[in-house]
């Protein structure tokens, strides 16, 4: 009985979500194929991004709210590539390659900053994402055009410099999804994207077996012991951050190729926040996350995401309630996960007292 309660306590968030989904989905009245189709597209769209969160958790840096930096790098690369009128899969490949140097730069900056704010990584990475958002806007609104040559009017703002609010992806929309896609019973299965995501999972599993992966796990659990064993803690944490940012860059490119257009100035901050919420819904915690959490999380979180507005309208007759309910659920999930992590951290300290009391009356008998 004890370990059942333990199991329940540990996975309170996924269980809660399963219950909510099982209530909302029937109410929404969507057909099964529609649901599966929707969840499949969102799964392929977001999975890569959420996978990029695993490495920093493994290295003990908590939830990487700074992943929006990687997303920004991906967006900058996409904008450049579409300005050079490159279409289809070559455009996606080029965008990924071009996002690497930018991601590395941003990852280094973020890693250095987090090393200066040890024990406060998450808040700092959260603020870094806003700070970098400011610099990103400076770059996109004022530097693109005069400094970085942008030819096409479809991308440039009418005033001649700066990038439009929304950049269209029409000429390379779903180019990867459709590549080897086939549909089974009305559900489109984008095989190539799934292959890419599977390759990423293999990389993470393989990475855990490398020396660097082992060092990261050691640093994540106890920095002092790792340092006394000779591991360069600072460098390892920075590498973890760089890898995560590069992966987030790729994830963003994959995410954007699925849409017909993306909003240059806001989609990266949405993406970051919803990826973290999805991961936590999958049962991950601030110091432990597995690939299983990613997929369970994506499916559960996005099922609710699809269903919420319609359920909201059905219950309250106002579609806005569904929208707000969706945003509330994401924030609530992150809050609960953070609170449980802090409480669990303080709990280990307090049960030593009980042992002593038991030891004493054992002595008396």
């Amino acid at each position, binding site marked *: 009985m004890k370990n059942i309660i333990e199991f329940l306590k540990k996975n309170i968030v996924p269980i809660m979500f399963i219950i909510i989904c099982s209530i909302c989905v029937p109410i929404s009245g969507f057909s099964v194929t529609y649901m599966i189709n929707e969840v499949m597209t969102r799964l392929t769209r977001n999975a890569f991004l959420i996978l990029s969160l695993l490495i920093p958790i493994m290295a003990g840096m908590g939830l990487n709210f700074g992943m929006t930096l990687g997303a920004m790098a991906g967006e900058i690369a996409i904008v450049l590539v579409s300005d050079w009128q490159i279409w289809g899969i070559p455009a996606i490949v080029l965008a990924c390659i071009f996002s690497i140097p930018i991601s590395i730069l941003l990852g280094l900056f973020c890693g250095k900053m987090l090393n200066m704010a040890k024990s406060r990584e998450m808040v700092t990475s959260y603020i870094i994402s806003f700070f970098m958002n400011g610099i990103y*806007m400076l770059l996109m609104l004022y530097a693109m055009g005069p400094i970085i040559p942008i030819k096409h009017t479809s991308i440039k703002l009418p005033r001649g410099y700066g990038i439009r609010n929304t950049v269209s992806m029409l000429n390379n929309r779903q180019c990867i999804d459709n590549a080897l896609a086939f549909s089974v019973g009305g559900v489109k299965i984008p095989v190539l994207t799934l292959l890419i995501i599977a390759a990423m999972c293999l990389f993470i599993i393989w990475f855990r077996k490398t020396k660097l992966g082992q060092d990261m796990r050691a640093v994540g659990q106890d920095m002092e012991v790792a340092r006394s064993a000779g591991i360069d803690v600072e460098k390892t944490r920075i590498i973890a951050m760089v890898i995560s940012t590069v992966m987030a860059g790729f994830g963003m490119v994959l995410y954007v190729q699925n849409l017909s257009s993306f909003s240059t100035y806001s989609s990266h901050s949405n993406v970051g926040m919803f990826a973290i919420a999805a991961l936590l819904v999958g049962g991950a915690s601030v110091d432990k996350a597995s690939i299983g959490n990613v997929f369970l999380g994506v499916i559960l979180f996005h099922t609710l995401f699809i269903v919420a507005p319609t359920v909201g309208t059905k219950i309250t007759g106002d579609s806005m309630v569904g929208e707000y309910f969706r945003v509330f659920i994401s924030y609530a999930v992150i809050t609960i996960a*953070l609170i449980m992590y802090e409480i669990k951290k303080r709990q280990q300290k307090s049960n030593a007292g009980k042992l002593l009391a038991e030891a004493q009356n054992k002595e008396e008998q």
Partner: protein
Amino acid sequence: MKERIKNIIAEFGISRLIIVGFILFMFALAPVSGNKISTLLSNVANRFAWNGLLVLSMVPMIHSGCGLNFGLPLEIEAGLLGVTIAIEMGFTGNEAFLAALTIATPFAILFGTLYGFLLNKIKGGEMMIATYVGFSAVSLMCIGWVMLPFKNPVIVWGYTGKGLRTMISIENYYYEVLSGFLRFKLFGVTIPTGAILFFALIAFGIWAFLHTKTGTAMTAVGSNPTFAKAAGINIDRIRMLSVILSTWIAAIGIINYQQGFGYVQLYTAPYSMAMPAVAAILLGGASVNKASISNVIIGTILYQAIVTTTPNVINSLINLDISDVIRIIVSNGVILFALTRKIEEPKK
């Protein structure tokens, strides 16, 4: 003499010197760009009166060691509830202001107690959780604004008659009730005396509180919690008190902000209220566990100066609407700077 200058600079902090230099540079450019310095200054004075209290609400929690109060949006909701209910009950003109304050107080105490109880449970991880508690509360309230049974046509959506509007003008309610009071011109600069007096009153209240027995206990809890515990202080009770105090000031602060700004902003407006207030108090020289009233005053003036002068000056000079970007970079840059400072642990 050189020695004195050196420790003034160290005391004032190099980063703040850069920002002050930047602002002076802006003021120097003002005449060239065609706006009068006096209008700029009155702008700063006006916005100081609006935001002063919101920044002041940071002090109690930083003082008692709860860290930077990113949960400000939750506290602002208490104030918004006070206003909407006051208007719903038909108060108009200046009584609406007083009614809003009185109604907001019970909500502030309720929200403060819940929020304080939660923060006591998670000592150490306050800042991150406060942020998301704030956001959850605001998004929950968005649902609330739609569902709660408000009838008064002034504030309810015109066509559906259900759910509150996002922006409610308080033109004939308590607009400028404080700022307008004894307003006078000091060689061209309009000073909203009423609002500044209101701020001064609350600030004096805080200053006085910090001189009382419980106030001293709160400072001790902030600077070394184990010392306070050894001296018999009930840490959780003091932290709870600081959170309730901060919630109450924030609730009052948002109502004061509205009387200056002229509109009540509901739904998603509170989201973006936390960052400016945190940036302002850090700009004033506060650290993650030490903040004083002078930090609030200096910080708010500096921050508002940046936010108001840069757009007017730069726009007219090189007609580039860059102010929004600069605001984001500066405010988040300052917070980042504070977070990466090493706060010396009491043990070291």
